[in-house]
Every structure is written in C-alpha cells, then in structure tokens.
C-alpha cells in the first residue's frame, strides 16, 4: 500500500517534471535566438585546420573540453583497474572455444581494424573521429577476448598504464608546447594545426580503445580488500 502510494507519487512528480520541461522547451523554441554561433564558426573554419565542423569544435575551438573528457575516461579506467587486484586479468571462465566464433573472428577482426582506421581518417571531413574509431577498436578487443585469444597485455602492469596514459600525454604535451611557444595553453600554430590534430586523434584512438577494453576486462575481481579505518571493532 505504502509502496504503491510512493510509486504513484513519484510518477506524478515525474509527469509534472516532463510537463514543465516540455512547456519551457516550447517557450524557448518560440523565442528568437540572440546569437548565432554556427555563423561565427563557419567564419573561423579556415583557421581550424580541418574541414569537418564537429571535429573542428572538438579538437580546436573547444579542445580543452576534449582534453578534460579524455581525463574523465582515464579516471574511469584507473578506478576500474584499481578494483581488479589480480596480477592477471585473464578470466578462463570467460573464454569460449566455440569454433564458429573463432572462424567468424578471423574474418571480422581484420575488417574491424580497417574500419577503425577508416573512421579515424574520415573524421577530418565527415562524421567519424577518434572516439568512434576507438570504440570499434575496443569492440574488436572484446570480440577477441570472448573468442579465447589470450591478451596478456591487459593486466594492471606498466604496459597497460602506459597505454592508458599515452593519448592523454600526447595531447597534454601539445598543449604545453603551444604554451611554451608563447601562445595560450592549447593554441595550435595555424600552419601545424592539421598535423597536430591528426597526431592527437591517432593516439587518442589507441588510448580510448585501451580504456574501454580495460574496463571491460577488469570487471572480474578477487577477494582482496582493504579494511575500513578502525573497522576491526
């Protein structure tokens, strides 16, 4: 009874929330827009180094967001591998020795690697880019892992941590180099913008794939644990 009352109260509150939100969306949709950012953006596109506006926003105009976003991803990866306290993250139970899956893999893995490369390259002038490519790369890793291909490099050793940090480090070094060059933090020299963006995107792809794969792989855990402070009593 109380449970039903509680659920209906929450349902009513959520409905009111939707109604209020929809009303203000409707009201905002009717108001004139004071500032047109897309126009300003297209005026500055020539200075950004890439042709696709979304990539330009992500990696040039608002590159600080992207830098911090990769930081968030690395944090999730760190927190994930800190949960897994085994020396090896291999979990024999997760391996299948399905011959069909194995055959499928031999077709799919190279194709997916090519697709990831294409997505990365396409980011310059059409939808695509580091994150999409990294996600496909990570999916390849997941497929390989489920198919029973051992992946010894995914254990919480130095190699994995280097991989996690690689993309972020390169991005950060570029940012620092631009600051040392006398410009603002993260300001690329216009002549080198294209090269720098391609370099950053490539290493980011690797790191993003690594983080996602590490999070997938690090889910199994063992029993090691840290007692709470003064928790013995």
């Amino acid at each position: 009874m109380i449970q039903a009352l509680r659920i209906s109260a929450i349902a009513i509150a959520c409905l009111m929330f939707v109604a209020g939100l929809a009303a203000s969306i409707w009201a905002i949709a009717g108001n004139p827009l004071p500032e047109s950012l897309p126009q300003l953006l297209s005026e500055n596109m020539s200075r950004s180094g890439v042709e696709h506006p979304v990539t330009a926003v992500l990696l040039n105009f608002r590159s600080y967001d992207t830098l911090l976003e990769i930081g968030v991803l690395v944090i999730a990866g760190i927190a994930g591998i800190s949960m897994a306290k085994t020396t090896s993250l291999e979990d024999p139970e997760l391996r299948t020795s399905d011959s069909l899956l194995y055959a499928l893999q031999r077709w799919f893995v190279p194709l997916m690697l090519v697709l990831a490369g294409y997505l990365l390259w396409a980011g310059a002038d059409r939808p695509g880019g580091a994150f999409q490519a990294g996600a496909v790369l990570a999916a390849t890793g997941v497929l390989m892992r489920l198919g029973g291909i051992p992946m010894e490099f995914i254990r919480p050793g130095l190699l994995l941590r280097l991989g996690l940090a690689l993309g972020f480090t390169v991005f950060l070094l570029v940012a620092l180099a631009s600051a040392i060059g006398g410009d603002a933090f993260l300001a690329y020299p216009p002549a080198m913008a294209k090269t720098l963006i391609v370099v950053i995107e490539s290493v980011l792809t690797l790191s993003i794939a690594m983080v996602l794969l590490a999070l997938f792989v690090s889910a199994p855990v063992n029993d090691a644990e840290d007692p709470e402070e003064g928790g013995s009593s």
Partner: protein
Amino acid sequence: MTAPLLYALAGALLCGLGLFGLLCLSHLLRKLLAFNVMGSGVFLVMVGLPQHQGGPDPVPQALVLTGIVVAIAATALAVVLIRRYYHLSGLTTLDAEPTSREGGQE
C-alpha cells in the same frame, strides 16, 4: 513544429522516464540503465532545441559527443563498482544494510 523540436520534446519525455526509473527501481543495473535513458533524453534536448531555429549547428553536436564519452566513462565505472559490490556482498540493491546497523539514525 519542426523535426528538431520534436526531438527535443521526445528528449523531455525520456528525461522524465529516466528520472522515474532512477528514483523507483532498486536494482542497481536498472538504475544505471535509467540513468542512461535520462542521459539520452538530455542529449536529444541539447541537439534538438538549438537546431529548431538555427539550422544545423555543429557546436551542440560536438558537446553531445563529449557528453556521450563522459556518460560512457561513468557507466563503465558504475558497472565495475556494481560487479565488485555484488561479488563482495551478494546484493544487487542499495536498500538492505549489509553490515550491522551501527551507523546511527539515518
């Protein structure tokens, strides 16, 4: 009524659904899925609303891309935490107290 505005309104509906799920459901994975539904709603509003009048706008599209990455990071972290929590306590909800109740009056 343009298509982007319809997206924005659908986004509002998804936000409400997700909020309801987040408050009502007790299984942690369901809560997490509800969070993702709500997140999708927010992204729809974010992309739909500015494009209703201004036409294609790459800025919110880029913002949403960043937002999706952040949401994925948060979801993945939550899944890892939930799995470890389940592994250690055998519980899938936050409702029942796993250890003795010495915490106080909350």
